Each structure stands twice: as structure tokens, then as C-alpha cells.
């Protein structure tokens, strides 16, 4: 490197003088701690497609948006006319950052394409149909803009190829019996299947919802735990601060 002209640094100096490159896979949308275990990067990779299926699919899909909506991001639900906002709000989402396009009809492709430019997470309902060329265009645009799509129901039905599949394999309600009690809380097991780095199987147990209608981690002693009291969850505190902000506003 002695021949290098003055002013041009040697290659080994480059990391010090140039800002660290951020690879696409390191840009993630936040996910609450209870579900972060399902993601290799600890959050939803920007530009990725996630398929959510199983009994509690709608609940799980809205639980995935909690952190995004609370940290100032936008969420849009396309083709989910039956979505119950109150239940989702109890789960912890911030409803003021949600918008709904209930009946996109045959314009679904254009609608989702337009949304990728403006919102961070797009929920796509089970009845939404996309043409295959629309699907490809949308995926390209999502990568460019950093928006992610969560499909409630099979992603293949709307011509999108999922990067991550989340499936609710088991759901168990407590509190109700034959003729007495009422539905109080539901324990669900979520299974993750992915491609590439995410290809190893992961499972997570959560209360979706717990007695108060919230999302809650599940500890093996069959009791809902209060996360804010467990010491090893440091990042949880960020979430608490935000909650107090939400309450005050």
C-alpha cells in the first residue's frame, strides 16, 4: 500500500472512516418482548411478508403491531371488515395509528401498493386477492420502502410468498366449562417456520389474551407473569415509558 497516493486511505482503514453500513436485514420494525422470541432479529424485518394462520390468527396479527403502533408507526388493515378494534386495543395496540380499508375489492393490489409508501405494517385479510404480477410489484416496493406485510390466513391465496410463517398450533381457553363460567384467558402456542436464517423451528407460549384482555408472556408454572417485574427483560422498560406517555396524552 506504499504506492497509494496521498489522501486515499488503505482498505483496512475504511471501517473507521466510513459510517457502518446497515444491511437490509438489520432494519427491523419493533415487536413487543413477548413475541420477540419468534424473530431471529428480534423484530419484523422491513420489507418481509409474514403469514399468520391458525385459530387465533387475527389476535396474533394485531399483537404483532403493538410495538409499531406505539412507537409512532402506522398500521393499515386491508380487507379485514370484521376486525374488532376494542379487543385489539385491549391487547395493547394504539388505535389512533390504525387505518382501515375494509373493502378494497378488485383494487386491492393498487391499494396495498399505495400503502407501502405511507405505512409501516399492512395487515391483509383472508379474502384479499392479488394478481401474481401485483404480488411481485408489491414485494419489490416493500423492500424499497421498508414496509412489511402480515397476511391473516394463507399468504399464497393473495399471491404473496411469505418469508416467515407463524402458525397458532394450539389454543386453550380457560374459565369456561359446560354451562358455567365465561371465556377469561387463552393460552396459545405459536410455531415459527421460516426460510434461510429463520429455518429452524421456534415455539413460543403466550396468553393471547389474558384475563385483562392483554397479551402476556407465559411462564412454565402455568401462571401469567408480570413482565415488568422480571429483571432479565431490560428493554421492557422502554415500553413502560411509552405506556405512561400514552396514558397522559
Amino acid at each position: 500500500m506504499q504506492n497509494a497516493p496521498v489522501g486515499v486511505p488503505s482498505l483496512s482503514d475504511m471501517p473507521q472512516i466510513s459510517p457502518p453500513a446497515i444491511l437490509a436485514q438489520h432494519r427491523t420494525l419493533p415487536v413487543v418482548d413477548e413475541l420477540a422470541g419468534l424473530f431471529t432479529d428480534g423484530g419484523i424485518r422491513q420489507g418481509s411478508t409474514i403469514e399468520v394462520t391458525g385459530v387465533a390468527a387475527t389476535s396474533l396479527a394485531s399483537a404483532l403491531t403493538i410495538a409499531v403502533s406505539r412507537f409512532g408507526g402506522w398500521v393499515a388493515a386491508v380487507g379485514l371488515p370484521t376486525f374488532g378494534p376494542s379487543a385489539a386495543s385491549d391487547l395493547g395496540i394504539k388505535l389512533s395509528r390504525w387505518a382501515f380499508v375494509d373493502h378494497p375489492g378488485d383494487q386491492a393490489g393498487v391499494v396495498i401498493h399505495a400503502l407501502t409508501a405511507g405505512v409501516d405494517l399492512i395487515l391483509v385479510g383472508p379474502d384479499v386477492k392479488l394478481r401474481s404480477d401485483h404480488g411481485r410489484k408489491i414485494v419489490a416496493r416493500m423492500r424499497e420502502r421498508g414496509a412489511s406485510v402480515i397476511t391473516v390466513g394463507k399468504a399464497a391465496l393473495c399471491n404473496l410468498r411469505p418469508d416467515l410463517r407463524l402458525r397458532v398450533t394450539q389454543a386453550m381457553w380457560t374459565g369456561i366449562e359446560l354451562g358455567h363460567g365465561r371465556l377469561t384467558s387463552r393460552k396459545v402456542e405459536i410455531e415459527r417456520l421460516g426460510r434461510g436464517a429463520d429455518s429452524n423451528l421456534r415455539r413460543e407460549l403466550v396468553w393471547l389474551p389474558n384475563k385483562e384482555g392483554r397479551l402476556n408472556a407465559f411462564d412454565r408454572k402455568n401462571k401469567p407473569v408480570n413482565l415488568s417485574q422480571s429483571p432479565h427483560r431490560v428493554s421492557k422498560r422502554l415500553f413502560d415509558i411509552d405506556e405512561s406517555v400514552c396514558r397522559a396524552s
Partner: protein
Amino acid sequence: MTCDQLAVVVDNDRIVDITPAAIEYGITLGVRRREAQKLCADLQVVLNDEELSVRRFSSVIEALESVTPRIEITTGGRCSFPTRGPSRYFGGDQALAQTVVERTVSVLSAMFETDEVPNHIYPKVGVADSRFVAALAATSETSSRIQVVVSGGSAAFLAPFPVDVLVAKESPLSEAHDLVDVFRRLGLKTLGDISSLPNQELVARFGSPGLLAKQLAQGIDSRASLLHSISNVVSEESEIDPPTDHVETAVFVAKAFADRICQQLAAEGLACVRILVEVETEHGEISSRLWRHERRFTPIDITDRVRWQLEGWWKSEMAPTGSLSLVRLVVNETIPDSGCQLGFWGEKTANDERAIRSFTRIQGLLGPDSVTLVQRGGGRRLANIEQKVPFVAANFDPNRVVNLPESTDAPWPGRLPVPLPIAVLTQAKKLEVVDDDGRLVRVSGRGHMERNPAYFKSECLGAHLIIGWGGPWFLDERWWDSAKKIRQARFQFLLDNDTSHLCVIENGQWWLEASYE
């Protein structure tokens, strides 16, 4: 200083006022001090002393208080008040303005000890529907010193004005120089051009400032319609013990108040635009003034107003005889804080503008009702609790309140217990619930069930075994109104495929209302 002297007033290195003699040298408002001095070497430069001008102005305010008690001071030399009451009393807007001019002139002539008030400080009055229009009417270059814009005629009055007036000092958009620059380059030269643009496109291109510009151009006081009632009036007061003769002590107390008030308002997402400052002495003398800010008061602004008011009072003819014993600040007008600051977690406002733009685009494709937002009210049935309202870019507030506080806080006996179902059918679907022998399950008027539910049959979900059920819970709403009354019994069913549903029976017919998906 007289008007034939060469002088300019400088604030923050920019010229804010010029004497007529200096204008002849080509000095204009807004240029730098150095440029002005280049044009005219023996120019006398006076630093802008807001405190002094407010103090001088306070004698005018005192005179005007005999016309109306609700005078709002914006800066030294500029004040406004609502005219509806006083103009009826004085016999019309013109007569009211005439009275205001007469009283101001008499004060000014006493102050300058002349019979003839010089032209450049002669009072100018504008009367109009909104504060922005009135300010323009008062300051515009016309022969008459009183200009009354007839009610409803604001848009026509404003149309010929150049877009530059949008960034005038009294405008809510006074910092949006970039926006006005773009307007000018797009060939939108007058306010009339802007008001002729369609709302949708204006929002899509410029976001909320664009819309505000249009509203200003049409003479709509958008800020007035956005007035928020503060949940509990924000006010701070404290006695000063022992009473003090020093203005600074009282100002120091007020500074702590101002910080607290701004913090409290910010927590509610509001900004203060009008504040009442009251000071009392131990002899019971009171000085009370309303202060207005065109954009928003910061704690420093509030403290400044308190200082100006106290200094003015102290040095006026009606100076108090006792020591200061009480300071009171009452916020009495606020606006939603529409993000003059960056969001808490980064650029939240840019984020919102992006989202608004794409929603507007979808509305253009599918119609105005296609994009909806949720509004939550109170009620016993899910359909009442959750309402979807069309997204309107025009009055969109990203930090809006989703839960209508009056109705969601109220107790609703008989409402659904949490957890709530997350899939709510827009149209309830018919279904059949039968017992082991295939007979329909019924509920009597007294809540008695003869048979136990065992099977669940529905067209959309198929036939399933019921492995858990709860109910009946009765809902008897509006029994006094034969058209709207609802009398039904609710059940929760847990089926053998792990799904659970909320169903109701009404007049012997079962309905599927929602699912806990």
C-alpha cells in the same frame, strides 16, 4: 425621535421598523442591519425593546378598556378584541372602530403632547370575521384608517393579496417561508389562486400547512374551529409571602408557573395561544391582561408577558400603592399542538404526513368512505362501542382521542366482559344451537333453559360439538321504545375445533355475532 430622522428599529439583526425618511434611501423591512447601513451611512439604529413598547402601549390599552374589557395584546402596538358585543353597543362596526380611533388618538396626543398625531403612528383599525383578515385589513395600504370587511366577504377581500401575506407576523403560518416560496414558483401569486385549489390536491401535495394556507386564504379562522376545551382549566396561582416590591421576584414565581402550565398542556397535546395574567397587591389593586400569541406561547414568552405587564403597571400613572402579593396565570385558549416539534421517537410528523398522503391516494381510487379510522364510544353492544369514521385528511389529527371520554368512562351495566371478541361480524349470521337429541335450545323470558346446548350448526362454520358454554346473559335495551328495543340473551360457546364464539338468541332465533379469533 421624530419621523424625519433617519432611523431603523432592529430585532435579531433584521429591520423591523423604519422611519419615513429612511424609506427614501431604499431600506425595506426584513433586510439585515448591515445592508441598511450600507444604503445610508448615518442611519440611527435602535434595538427593538419589546418591553418598552408594551409599556408605552399599555396606556392605549387602558383607554380602550373603556370600550371593551376583553382586549388581547399580541405585541406592543397591536391588540385585538371580539367585536360582537361592543359593536352592538356603539352602533355598528364602523362606529366602534371610530370610537377606538378617537380614544387612541386622545391618548397618543397626550403622550406626545401634540394636537396633531403624526401620520405614521396614527391608529389603524380593521374589523373582519377572523383575526388574520382583520390584521390584514388594519395594516393594508389604503387611504382610510378604518377598514371594515363585511361579514362573509373575507374571501373576496383577501383574493387580490399576494401570497407573501401568509408569512406576515400576525399569521399562524408565519414560519412557513418554504411553503410560500413553492406557491410563488408554481405561479400561485395571490390568495385567490390558493383558495381556488381543491382541498384534496392541496393536502396531497403540501400536507396540513397547505390546507391551513387555503383556509386562511378563504378567511376561515381554522384555528377558532379547532379550539379545544381543556379538561380542567389550566391555571396556576400563588401568593407571594412576604409581599414584594421587586418586579423580578414576581416574574420568578411566574416563570415556574409557565413551565408547569406548558408541561401540563403538552401532556394533553395542546399549546396555549391566549393567557390571562393577573397580579394583585396587598392593597387589593389588580392588574389583569389578556395576552395572545399567534402560534403558541413558550414558557419564556409567558414570562416575558408577565414582566412587560408588571413593568408597565409599575411605571404607569395608575401605579399600585402596595407590594405585590399574588400572581395568577390562567390559560383560556388552546389549540392542538400540531407538531412544531419533532416527535418523541424521531420524526413522527413526517411519518404522519406520509401516511396521510397514501390514504388520500386510496380515497381517490375507491371513494371517500374507503379509508376509515376507529372512534370508540360507550355502549353495551359491540356495534355501539366501535364506530368507523371516514378518514378526512382536512381535519386529521394524528394524536386524536380515539375513545370518546364521556361515554367510555360511564358505567354500562350489562356490557361484554373482557376479553372482547376480535372478529365482529358486520351482519349477524343465523345459526342453530341444539341439544343432544337435536332439539333447538330456547331461553324463556325469565332466563330459564330447558335444554343444554350440545351442538352448534352454522352455514359458514359448519357443525361442531360444543365443549364449553357460558350464559345466558341478558341484554334488555330501550324497552321503552318499541322500534329500537333489543331483548336478547348472550352466550359464549367453545367448540371442539378450539374456536370460540359470541352468540345471541333473540325471539327464538340464534345469531352468530362475533368470534374470539
